[in-house]
């Protein structure tokens, strides 16, 4: 559990400047080249998106092991770190690309929250935290919609073949394949974005990280 606490503190430290007015203003001022503020904003968005993708992908597969929580944490942290790293690089090298991701995340957040609101009205035990949760999942997909949709298609395709050919592969496994596809596609899109941003990199920037653990 300690490593999770450490990571939490590290993510807080990294993303804190993006929450501050100065960092926000600096990131918004950049259009095509990177900046320290945009890098930090990218880190926060990438980490948030990665965490949500990781936890969503882990829900069904990890429920098949007695070390369920450990499994889910590993998936969440790995995906969060991939998002964190990729988001940082995207922000550092191409804040315009980061702006597109943020705009998609905002749309996804709104769409997810709208779905959540409908569920809240229909499902008895659902509350505002569930609206926020569907919004967060929407955000994680909206930040990288092409990758997530392609991943979903690939996951459902592979899952369907397995469902049709392997008797022990049931409907929950098919759903799990779809969710893993969404996560893998979303994370892959973050990595590709970082690679492409590097290819179009301008003068580059210095990223002022500070860790306090």
């Amino acid at each position, binding site marked *: 559990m300690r490593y999770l606490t450490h990571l939490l503190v590290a993510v807080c430290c990294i993303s804190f400047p993006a929450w501050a007015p100065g960092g926000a203003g600096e990131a918004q001022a950049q259009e095509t080249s990177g900046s320290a503020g945009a890098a930090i*904003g990218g880190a926060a968005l990438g980490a948030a*998106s990665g965490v949500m993708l990781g936890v969503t992908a882990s829900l069904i597969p990890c*429920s098949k092991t007695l070390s369920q929580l450990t499994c889910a*944490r590993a998936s969440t942290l790995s995906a969060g770190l991939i998002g964190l790293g990729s988001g940082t690089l995207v922000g550092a090298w191409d804040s315009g690309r980061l702006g597109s991701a943020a705009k998609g995340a905002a749309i996804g957040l709104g769409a997810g929250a709208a779905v959540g609101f409908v569920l809240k009205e229909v499902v008895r035990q659902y*509350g505002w935290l569930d609206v926020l949760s569907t*919004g967060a999942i929407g955000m994680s997909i909206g930040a990288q919609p092409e990758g997530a949709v392609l991943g979903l298609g690939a996951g459902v395709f592979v899952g369907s073949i397995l469902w049709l050919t392997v008797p022990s592969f049931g409907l929950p496994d098919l759903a799990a394949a779809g969710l893993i596809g969404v996560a893998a596609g979303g994370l892959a899109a973050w990595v590709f974005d970082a690679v492409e941003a590097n290819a179009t990199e301008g003068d580059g920037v210095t990223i002022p990280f500070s860790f306090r653990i």
Partner: protein
Amino acid sequence: MIPTIRVCAGVALGVLAAGCATSAGMRLGPEDGGCPDRAAAASGGAVTWYGPAGPGDEQSNERWCETVGSNVLEAFPRASFPSPGPSDSVAVVAWNILIGGGDVPLFLEEVLGYDCHPTSPELDAGFSHFVLLIQEAYRRSEAIPDVPELFKFPPRIEPESPPEGWLDIVELARDCGLALFYVPSARNGPQTIEAEREDKGNAILSTLPLTDLLAIELPFEAGRKVVVAATIAGASGTRLRVASVHLDVASTLYRTLTTANTTRLRQAVGLIEALALIERGGVTSGIVSVGSRETSCGDLPGPIATVAAGDFNTWSAGESAVDQMRLCFPDSPPWDGKPTYGSFPTDFIFFRRAGDGRVSYLDGSQRRIEKRYGSDHQARIAWFGRSE
């Protein structure tokens, strides 16, 4: 862009932080509060209560408990049955009866050879004593509390084509002359103006007297779940504890995300911890981190042979809740690969022998009942008897 990032990062950090906090621990006797059953237990009632040690679970269970009526106990069957012989076995059935939609009298007649005619119930020759571990039993009563509409009641479940008469669990036990232990978990729908109020929960129906009665409130996920358990006695002092179990089908999305979907595993761990606590005679179990292989099965084999069976609401037979139960009930019948709710394997019978080894599962006796008898679940049945 930045406000979006702030919201997203906040939620993600929340997920990370809450992911540390899924735990279970059980203790004897939840506070009595305003819940009538607990008040009775606190004043020396026949039922011993166990519940989750966490205050959040306790408060949620308390709120739900206040909306239901008292438990119902008929410890001795009204019909007369022959005493079990030394070589007799007992059939244990696990069945979710969909709020009385399952035709229990017809099931008893066709599967267990028992005609539960109200005036002269009769167990056919050659058939064994039986225990029905029932989920989604329901009871109609004016004694169920009148609760303000502010409470968010679970929606009312009503079978599409209930059997003739549509008896509640109390009427069923009376008409069939069986021993009954029923503990309501939740209301079945909101207030009604003309009809009587209804609650629902787990129950045990038996041809054998029920003793050592236990009500185990599970860690709260989406709704209150109470495992009911009792002990039946065979010939020569053999004893078998039977527990009727119903786990939640799903929690809220927020809880699912922040507890890594450990809903049913946490409830299974709660049950296992409570049984270990009961067998050791303790008051409070340790808080275990669910999903980290910390669960204690107690001393295996334990002091009493135990069957825990029912509707575990699992999506697959390889789910962690099932694996956890198998780990702590190592003498369980093997799963036969057959689903019991559509394509989902939701219903299981788990078993562990006692240290004296006198009661065991009769190998190969477990099977799925093919007819649904009006329920949405198929029942499972297994026989237990003296070890050779």
